[in-house]
Each structure stands twice: as C-alpha cells, then as structure tokens.
C-alpha cells in the first residue's frame, strides 16, 4: 500500500533521476567533442585507441598529454566549484552568497599572485599556497563574523569587506611587479586549464570525490538547516557542528580546485541556481550542481580554446557568458520577496 505522499515523493525522485541522466548525457557529449575536436580533429576511435595506450601518429601527444588531462581537470574543477557553490548558497540561505562573491576565492588569488610575482614560485608551490590561503581566508572571515554566535548576514558582509581588502592588495602587487610577470598572474587569476598534467590530477580527483561524498551524506542535514537555526535545533540537528562541517568540506573542494585551475569565475555562482532551475529548488541538488559545473567548465573551455579569435582562459569566457545570467538572476531574486 502506497499512500499519497509516498507516490508523490517517488514521482519526484524519478524525475530527478531522469534530469540527472540527461545532464550526464550532455556532459558525455561535451567530453567527446572536447576530446575529438580542436586545432586538429581526431575520430572517436582514434581517441579511444590513444587512451588505451596505442600510438596514433600525431594524436598521442595532443590527446594523451593535452586534451585528456585538460578534460579531466575541467570535469573535476567544475564539479568541485558547482558543489561548493551550491552548498554555500543553500547554507547561507542566499543565492548570491556564493564563494566567489563573498570573497573566499580572493584569498587564494592573493596568495597565488604573491607566489607568482614576488616569490617567482613554480606552479606546484603556487597551488599549495592557494589552498592554504583559501582555507585561512575562510577561517578569518568566520572568526571575524563570529560574535555572540553565528550570523549569516555578518558572514556575507565580512566576506565582502575582506574581498575588498584583498583586491586592493592584488592590484598593488600587480602594479609593483615587473611587466613580463604580470600576464602570468593575470592568467592565473582569470582561471585557466593550461599546463595541467595527470601527475597530480588523480590525487585531486580523489580528494574532491571523497569530500563531495561527505557533503552528499550530509544532504539530509543540509535540508534541515535550510529551515533555519531554531527549527534545525528542534529537529535534533547539532547546528554548529553540521554547519562547520559542511562549510569546511565546501571550502576544501573550492581551495583544491582553485589550486588546479585558478578561480574560474561564475561557475560556483551559477551551477546551483541552474541545477535548481532544472531539477527544482526543493532538493539539495548536490550532485546536479556538480554536473552542471562540469558542463559549464568544459563548454566554456572549449569556446575559449577553439571558437574565439584569440585563445581566452576558461575563466574569462565563463565570466563573460555568466555575467548576463548573473544580472538576470539578481534582478529576479530581488523581485521575488526573497533575499
């Protein structure tokens, strides 16, 4: 005997699974496009034979060393940005409160720019600095905002203030740096997938996979937290612990992904709302936002590499494409009685 509520619920789940499958399909198509087309085109069979270790003239290097790591990195980073952004937005109860807007990524950027311009560090060191700085920035924002308890509004406002400060520091470092170093720093800040190699991507993928599982496990708790602090307490959630855990997981994903690609703008901001628009806003959408993020990054990177007169870093493309949507969302959000 199934009752009404149960039938409705199963119906919703079925729809969610269908939506997610369609998204996965789109992702798969994009992966194939990204692997086969480009400065030189290959057939899917050639691509597959390269991936299985066979030697294809001209293809082994381009596919094996360039396109494959690039595609994997795009998927991993997009997935991480998408999930982290979505979790931030849901936890802070405000679709505008994504990590790139409230200044979490700026911490990583400031450290990376410092590493590139002042220390002339190599990419590995810069990445580690970015991870550490990202984590520290969030901690600082949280500590500043924490006074007689936690307040979402204070977290958001503090984030914006910290961001303003770090941006001033970045501009200053750029101004002081030698002219030939500046482009590297600017490229890093825009977010790009050049020079990624498989050496460390496995590790990055593993970390992000594990952390995203933790977030997924906590998705029920996350849904309860959306009811507000009081309700969550009444329903038996340890609010402080749960919130810190979820935020920490998102920040780790964010920092690690940023270390690989730099802050790819708009992805964290857009994935959650897009996933919500497709699957309905009434669920946690963790997986869906991850997939949307991956789709966006792969798509933007393909456009930036192949479809524009100059090669643009993926972050510039995603930022420019995302801008109108961001503004649209902003207007719509404020028009509804939300925020």
């Amino acid at each position: 005997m199934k009752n009404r509520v149960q039938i409705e619920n199963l119906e919703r789940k079925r729809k969610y699974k269908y939506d997610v499958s369609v998204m996965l399909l789109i992702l798969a198509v994009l992966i194939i496009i990204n692997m086969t087309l480009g400065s030189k085109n290959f057939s899917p069979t050639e691509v597959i034979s390269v991936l299985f270790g066979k030697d294809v003239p001209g293809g082994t290097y381009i596919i094996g060393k360039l396109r494959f790591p690039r595609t994997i990195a795009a998927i991993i980073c997009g997935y991480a940005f998408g999930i982290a952004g979505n979790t931030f937005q849901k936890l802070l109860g405000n679709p505008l409160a994504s990590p790139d807007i409230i200044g979490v990524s700026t911490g990583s950027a400031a450290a990376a720019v410092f590493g590139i311009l002042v220390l002339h560090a190599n990419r590995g060191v810069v990445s580690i600095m970015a991870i550490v700085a990202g984590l520290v920035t969030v901690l600082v924002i949280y500590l500043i905002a924490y006074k007689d308890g936690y307040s979402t509004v204070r977290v958001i406002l503090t984030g914006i203030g910290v961001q303003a400060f770090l941006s001033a520091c970045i501009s200053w470092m750029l101004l002081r740096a030698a002219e030939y170093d500046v482009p590297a720093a600017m490229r890093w800040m825009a977010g790009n997938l050049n020079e990624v190699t498989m050496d460390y991507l496995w590790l990055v993928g593993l970390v992000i996979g594990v952390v995203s599982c933790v977030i997924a496990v906590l998705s029920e708790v996350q849904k309860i937290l959306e009811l507000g602090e009081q309700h969550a307490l009444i329903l038996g959630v340890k609010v402080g612990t749960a919130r810190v855990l979820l935020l920490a997981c998102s920040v780790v994903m964010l920092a690690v992904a940023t270390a690989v690609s730099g802050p790819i703008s708009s992805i964290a901001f857009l994935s959650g709302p897009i996933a919500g628009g497709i699957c309905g806003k009434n669920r946690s959408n963790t997986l869906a936002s991850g997939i949307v993020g991956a789709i966006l990054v792969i798509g933007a990177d393909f456009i930036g590499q192949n479809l524009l007169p100059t090669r643009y870093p993926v972050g510039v493309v995603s930022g420019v494409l995302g801008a109108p949507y961001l503004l649209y969302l902003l207007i719509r959000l404020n028009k509804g009685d939300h925020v």
Partner: protein
Amino acid sequence: MTTNRDKRYKRSVHNRVLLLMLLAGVLLLLVSIVLSITYGAKQVELTDVISALFGKKQTTYNVNVVRARIPRTVFGILAGAALSMSGVLMQSITRNPIADPSILGVNTGASLFVVIGISLFHIQSKPVYMLLAFAGALVTAFFVYRIASFGYGGVTPIKLALAGAAVSTALSSMVSALVMPDTSVMTTFRFWQVGSIGGADFEDIRLLLSPMLLGFVLCFFLATKLNTLALGDETACALGLNVNRIRGIAALIGVLLCACTTALAGPIGFIGLMIPHLIRSFIGDNHEVLLPMSALYGSGVLILSDLIGRILGSPGELESGVMTALIGVPCFVFIIRKAEVQSIG
C-alpha cells in the same frame, strides 16, 4: 526648571564636544597639509618649502619637489572631503551602516569604461580617461542601486552589498576579457587600477573642481532633509518630505562626488565608509554638522594616509588606495561586529 537646566547643560556639553572636534579636525588638516608638503620620499628643507610656496623665482631641485607635492595635497583635500561626504549620503539614504560608494561597484564600473576606452578606442589622453571613469562610475552606481531596490523591503543593506559585489564580479570578468589578449592594455590599465592621488596636476583639478564644488554646496542644502529622512520613510512622508525625490537627489550627488574622485585617482576605498562612522560616534546623527565634519576629517585622513604611504613605500610610494584599504578594513570589521545584526540584515 530642573529639566530645563539639564537640557541646557547637555547642550553645552554637546557644543563643547563639537567645538573640540572642530578644533582637532582643523589641526589635523593643517598638520597633515604641512607634513604632506614637507615630508615624502625626498626630504626637503623648510626654507625650500617656504620659497616654493611664496613664489620666489628660485627653481632649485628641492623647490620643484615641493611644488610637485602641492597639487596632490590640494587634490587630497578635495578627494577626502568628497569621498567622506559621499559616504554620509550613501549611508543615510540607504540606512545602511556599511554603504560606501565603492561597495556600490562604482570602481569596477569606472574600470570597465576606462578599459573599453584603452583597448577598443585606443584612447591615450588623460581627460578622456577621466570622463570615461566618471561615466562608468555613474552608470554602474545607478544600475546597482536600481537592482537592489527591486522587490520586497526596498534597498536593504544586504541586498545592496550583494548586488554591488555581484555586479563587480560580472564587470571585472569583462575587464579581464578586454585586458587579457593585449599586454599593452594590461600595462596601461594596471596603473589606473590602484587608487592614488599622486597623479593629479592642476589641469585635472581645474576640470573637476566645478562639479565637486557643486556637489559640496548641494550637500549642505540637503542636510536638513536628510535629518527628516532619518526618521523613516513613512514619518518623513507624513512630515511632507518627497522621500523618493530627496533620496534620488542625494544618491545623484553622492555618486557625483565619488565619481569625480575615482575619475582622477582611481579606486580609493574605505574613506567613505570609516570617516562618517567615526564622526557619527562622536557627534551623533545630525547631518548639518555631520557632513562638514566628515569632510574635514576625510581630507585630513586621506592626505595623511597618502603621506604614510609615501614614507613607508620609499623610494617609491605605497598608493593611497592601498593605504586606505589597510587602515579601512579593520574599521569595516569593527563596524560589522558592533552593528546589531538586525540593523544590517
């Protein structure tokens, strides 16, 4: 009888505080002007300063150094006053303790317009940059304000802050899109992106003087009306104030003042945020005193931070935009922690 005497007593205390603040402010301004002209990366003798100021036809190296410092000091006075008055206006029309012209995305808007000018139209002349920055600042500020005012509850602090941040994010990716492919654009642009009052010369100041003075004058006419507005929209309306018009005019003047500064100096943040707060905590919310007092202290603090930047950064300089951020962020944090969450939410 007693209540009357109490009142009188309180008023006299208040007046004394005002007088003290005024004296201290004037002193601060004078001292910082003198210091700003005398000190810097290069030390000069007092006699050189005097001969530079009083126009003896000497043209030693030191005299020229001093002469070069004069326009930046003059501009510092104007810019500091403009920024902090603009901050007062923004804060009072939005009833928002963290409103600051730079939070409205004014700077990014100005940047975008300047970059468009550099990269698409290959503009090289400074007055045109200034015009572009001015237009960009104006357009963006209104856009952000408009977005934030949609919907429930009007312009709430959090809506405004987020709208500003989001618009900034959007615009800055457009800026990078334009800057990225061309190194020469990047080189030109990065000098503009850090706010500094160092680049001012009398030519530029003359250009901006009239809109700024206009802004200052209009501000004082608005003061009483802003006091009424502070009672809340409904009460103000009941008292016969055209709330929307006053708010619109105040916003226009606020952005005008800020845009003038940004056009010449680039983004200088936080002055507009912290000065009004500081002053308000001493003398209260009366705009008739708050506005001039903020202007006075704004000038002093900006010149002083410029000076500190010059000394700390010597042989070069630490741009004033960076200095004000360094000083301003702790203030910002303090304000956020002090303000009741309800009042900012």
